Each structure stands twice: as C-alpha cells, then as structure tokens.
C-alpha cells in the first residue's frame, strides 16, 4: 500500500498521464522536470505502478472528469512502491567507484533511501555521475524481450548527471524504446540535457505541491507537532522533499540553518554595507554552492513575509510563523513596494548566477551591496 496520493501531490501531471493511459497513448520516453524533492520520483513509480497494476481504480475529480490510479494493493503495485519489482530498472548518479559490485551496493543505498521516503532528495554532489557502465547495463538488460505481462519502466534519476558518452550510447534507445518498455528521464535542469534527448522525450512539468498536502503528509509520516508541520510545509515552498529534509536532517547536516539565515537577513537590513558583507562572508565560510542557494531561498521567504506584513498590514499567511514578532519589526523596511520588488529581483538574479557557476563569495557580496543600494534608493 502506497503512503502517498500522487493525485494530491501532482494533480496536473497525473491528469495528463492518467488520460494518456486511458486513451492508450503512453509515450515511449518521458522527461519529468522539476526541482529535486518535488515529487518526480513519486510520479515515476506511480506511473510504473499504473502501467502494471492488476486492477487500476477509476476515480472522479471535482470537475467530474474521470482519472485512473494504481490500486496500490495488488502484487505488482506492492512491489513497485517497494522498489522490488522485476520490471523496474534504475540509473542513479553514483560517486566514483571501481568495481561493478560497488555499483550495485551504491545503487541499493540510494534505493533504500527512496524506498523509505519517495520524496527524499538524494545527494547531488558534483562527483556523482551516471556512468557509461550503468548506461551499458541498462542497454544490455533491455536487449532481452520484456517478460510476458510486464511493462518495464526504466528511471533515469538526475539525468543531467549522465556523462555525454553515456547519453550518446542511449540515444537510439531513448528515441525508440523496445516494446513494452517506458523510459522516464528525471531532471532538475532539462535544458542541460542534449537537445537530441530533449526532443525525443515527452516533457511533463512537476509543479509545486500545495502546502496543506505537504503538511498532511508530514503529519501522517513523521512524528512532528502541528506548528512544525505548518512551518515546514510553508518554508518548503511546494517541494515536499525539502520539508522532509528539514524535518529529518540532523541540524548539523543542514546546508544552512534557518536561524543563521535570519540573523544574516537582519544584519542585511540593519547593519552598514561593509558590516553586512563581512558578517555574511564569515558565516558563509567555505560552504558550498548549495548552501549559498539555500540561504537565498530563505531570504526570499523572509522578504515575502516582511512585505506581506508591511503592505497588507496583516501577519496572516506568513510562512515563518515562529518569527512573527521579529518579522513585524523588520516590516517597515519594505513599506515601499519598490524596495521589495527590487530586492526580490536581485536575489532571483543571484540565484540564477549561482546556478551558472559564478564565484560564490563574489556573487553574495555583490548581492548585499545591491540590496543595500536598493533600500537607500527607494527610501
């Protein structure tokens, strides 16, 4: 029995897939795009279950349109959701290793995480890659005919981490998968994939999950207080994997703790530009790009909360409900909508720059100075 309802997490994507299944128009290759932890894996295994379910269930949505879901009870559904189905194959980015046996061990470690939590974010450090050997193994397995009555599903997780040589080796397969075989490519940045791959796959965009769905899921799966689930669901901004990471990670392992991010946000608003930059540089230290991006994502949320309080004169609907008092104190900095808009734009641009591999410290220092300048200009 699955412990998540994919129709609640990804209603739009599931409607498309369900309709394709009902009309027998399932594509050979799909490209599920969206941020890590947004539910692309859950969507992929739900589709695998639907394709192999012995008794799919027809349901009606609020618009009186029918859609179909896997039963979650039959042998195939049970094994697919447990990642133990004979027709499921995986290509997962792995750290450098030498022996084939290590590939199996490392893949099993990743699968164990996903088996326990389908929305979990797997490590995506830059040395993790989908090697040519894994691509070859998949090709070899697919050279054999599919067992009778089974539709094989191959999940390529973090497809952008596949070496170009591996991707080249799979081009023909991606263009025309063997009979009874569906390929699902999962990517955060599909634009980084070879154009030949992008054009061969049907793209499905995985969207944000409503906070109440994330909250309900956290409540049902983790032992957390109501206020914590509310807070995590809001901070996660529609990405269940992020909420789960914050709920389950040791605080030491978090790339950036919210309290630290808030302290820097306060410093940004209240200290002089040199002081704010110095404080930021001290705290950021030798942390990686992911941590810098996490910091900016927190700042976006703090900024949104302050702006909401300043402009709507209400603290209802703020994300950081536990910081309500401090945020109310900082809200006057954003009394002018231009300040908020300008600062939001600067953060967004810096996030884009960080994705493009710019120097972390330089980008953050420039951001602080631009934001301070925006505050002075708007005032």
């Amino acid at each position, binding site marked *: 029995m699955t412990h998540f309802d994919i129709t609640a997490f990804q209603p739009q994507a599931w409607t498309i897939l369900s309709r394709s299944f009902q009309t027998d128009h399932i594509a050979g290759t799909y490209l599920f795009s969206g941020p890590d932890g947004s539910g692309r894996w859950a969507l992929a295994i739900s589709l695998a279950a639907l394709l192999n379910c012995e008794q799919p269930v027809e349901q009606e949505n609020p618009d009186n349109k029918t859609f179909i879901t896997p039963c979650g009870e039959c042998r195939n559904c049970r094994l697919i959701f447990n990642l*133990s189905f*004979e027709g499921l194959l995986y290509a997962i980015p792995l750290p450098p290793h030498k022996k084939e046996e290590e590939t*199996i061990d490392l893949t099993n470690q990743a699968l164990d995480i996903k088996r326990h939590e389908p929305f979990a974010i797997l490590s995506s450090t830059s040395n993790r890659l989908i090697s040519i050997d894994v691509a070859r193994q998949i090709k070899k397995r697919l050279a*054999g*005919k*599919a*067992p*009778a009555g089974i539709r094989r599903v191959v999940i390529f997780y973090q497809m952008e981490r596949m070496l170009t040589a591996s991707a080249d080796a799979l081009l023909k397969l991606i263009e025309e998968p*063997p009979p009874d075989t569906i390929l699902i490519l999962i990517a955060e940045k599909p634009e980084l994939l070879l154009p030949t791959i992008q054009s061969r796959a049907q793209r499905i965009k995985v969207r944000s999950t409503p906070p109440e769905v994330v909250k309900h899921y956290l409540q049902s799966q983790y032992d957390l207080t109501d206020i914590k689930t509310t807070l995590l669901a809001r901070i996660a901004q529609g990405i269940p994997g992020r909420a789960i990471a914050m709920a389950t990670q040791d605080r030491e392992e978090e790339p950036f703790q919210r309290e630290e991010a808030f302290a820097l946000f306060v410093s940004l608003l209240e200290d002089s530009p040199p002081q704010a930059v110095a404080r930021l540089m001290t705290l950021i230290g030798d942390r990686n790009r992911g941590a810098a991006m996490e910091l900016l994502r927190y700042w976006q949320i703090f900024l949104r909360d302050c702006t909401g309080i300043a402009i709507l004169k209400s603290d209802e609907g703020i994300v950081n409900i536990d910081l309500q008092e401090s945020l109310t104190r900082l809200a006057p900095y954003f009394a002018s909508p231009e300040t908020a808009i300008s600062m939001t734009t600067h953060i967004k641009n810096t996030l884009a720059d960080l994705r493009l591999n710019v120097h972390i410290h330089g980008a953050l220092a420039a951001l602080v100075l631009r934001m301070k300048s925006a505050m002075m200009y708007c005032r």
Partner: protein
Amino acid sequence: MKFTLPKSKLGDYLQYILQVVPNKATLPILTSILIEALENKLKISATDLDLSMTVSLDGKVVKKGSIAVPARILSDIIRELPESEITVEGTSSRVELKIPNGSYKIGAISPEDFPKLPAVNTKKEIKIDGESLVKMIRKTTFACSDDETRPALNGVLWQTKGDKMQMVATDGHRLARMAADNPTLKGMYDDVIIPPKVLNLLPKLMGDTNREVGIIFGENNIIFNLGDIIITSRLLEGPYPNFEQVIPVDNDKKLVVSRNELAGAVRRVSILSNALTHQVKFSMKDNKLTLSTANADVGGEGKEVISCTYTGEPIELGYNANYVLEVLSKIDSDDVVFELSTNVSAGVVYNVDIPKEEYLCLVMPLRLAE
C-alpha cells in the same frame, strides 16, 4: 510448508541452482531461491531475470507450501552439515532446518514477491537429441558478439525451417553456422535469438549423459526441459542481420591444409604479432602456405612455411590469429578447407569431411600493413 530429504540430495541440486543466483542485485529477492513443496515433490527455482532455473526432486512432503530463502546462506549451511535427513519447515517469515542434533533458522521472504516464472506448456514441446544440441552450441556460441551497440548479435540465432534447424552466431569479424535435420520440428518455422549464457550452461548441466531435451519456443522466452531441470531464458530482441548475404558462394581459391599443423604454426608465429591486431600474414603459392608476422614494437619477425594443397592464383591475406585458432579448434577433421577470393573478402572455413552446408565458419581478413 514442511518436507524431509537427505542432505546430499538437497546440496547437489542447490549447487545446480546457485549457477543462476546473482551474488548481488538491485532487486534483493533475486539473491533468494523459491522452494515449493508439492505432492511428494519439491521444486526449487532461481532467476536473475534473464535466466531462470527450476529443479524438481522427490522428497517426503508433510505439508505443502512455498517460501523464498536467501540462496547462499541456505547453501552454505547445507554444505557444512554432516550427511543426515534434513527436515525443512517454513512459516511466512522464517525457515527452520532441523537436523538430528540441532536446528538452523533463516529469515524468509514471501513467495509472492518472487518474480513470476513462465509457465511450462509441455504440449508445445519439441524433442531434440541432446548430443546434437550440445554440438551445435559448442560450434557456434564462440562467435557471438559482446558489442552492446548491436544487441541482436549478442545472441545465437536459432532458425527452424520445416524439419531443418540451424544455429548462427557472428560478431561481424567471424561467423559460425551449423545446421542439422530434426524431423520432430513438425514443419515449424521460427527465428529466435538466444543469449549465449543459457546455451553455455546447457552442456554443463547435461554432462556426459545423452538425453533428449524438450524445447518450448515462446514469444518472449525459450524453455529447455532436461527432465528434472527446467531452464528458461529470455530471448533477445531482433531482427538478426541477414547473414546469408555475407557468406560467399563463388570463392575461387581453395586451400586444404592439416588442421594441427596450421594451428601450431599460427600459435607460434602469432607470439611475435602486434599485441592489438594479432595479425598474421598468410601467403599461398605453389602448394606452400607461408605464415609470417613482424612486430616493430619488439623488433621481432616470425615466419614458417607449411605444405598444403592450394589451387588458384597466389594470394596474401592478413588474419587475426586468435580468430583463426578459435575456428580451427571447432573443426574436427584432420584437414581443413579454406575457400578464398580476395584479400579483403571473407574466407569460408570448413571441415574436409563434412559438407559446408552442415557446418561452416567465416573469417574476415585484416587489411595488410603496407
């Protein structure tokens, strides 16, 4: 589930079945075997998803049922036990092995989780003489390709045409084809591509016994019924390339040479050949075959002349010594025939005692260095 049988019997069959069990797998159940206790009969199955094996053995079944057990743990325990009657009793989550002076308990998995094995429909079974099957396998599988870009060539093509059948394997550099008559095919026309893994396993399982093998050609798989052992292999996706068109029919030069003499000379000369290409030059003129090689890397040269019967214009060709030796090892007669045309076209190699329609090999020459 509960049954009793002698340790040695269980141990022997487990050794067979372990050949299919992978040491590690991303699908954990594959490292387990399925034990089914039926009416006075036991079935033990294993699969790696490409290849499945089921062995049947007689046993005293007290209670019917089935369970999946980690294969290597079970096998290790059975192997170390002294000879005695073993009682195996399974619940939904555990298997207990009872011996006269103790017991062992192993965690088990629900049999439902074990991959479904194809049903064996003996009505569709055809019988083939085991000896001729093994012969066909041994004489063809060596030429299979391991190039994953052409997956169909990774297997052996088995064609049945009326009452004839033939096996073909090629990797693009050499080809082996063996044909045989089989009246039991009853007019069946079928082309299947079989992975070599199962074909290489069959001779080992059959040993020296000359028994008939039941074969069921399925849509996605092929089943070999050896009586107490049933092996199923997934078929490879086709189509297989049209190999007939690469077999030359009008090669005008003919070389007949002693197989042993040629093999010995090729082996010796090739020691000095290029480590990558293993190229040995074959020069034929006036009933003399000269084998030579030169290797600038080690500053060596080798040359041997052997007598032969050669008809046709003098010719010089380069061959990969390993390919020639492999083909020669598959020929049974004292003399071997090479039919040749030019130094860039395929040479047909066959047994002097058997018509080439029955068994032939093809070897592509290498371009000779300037």
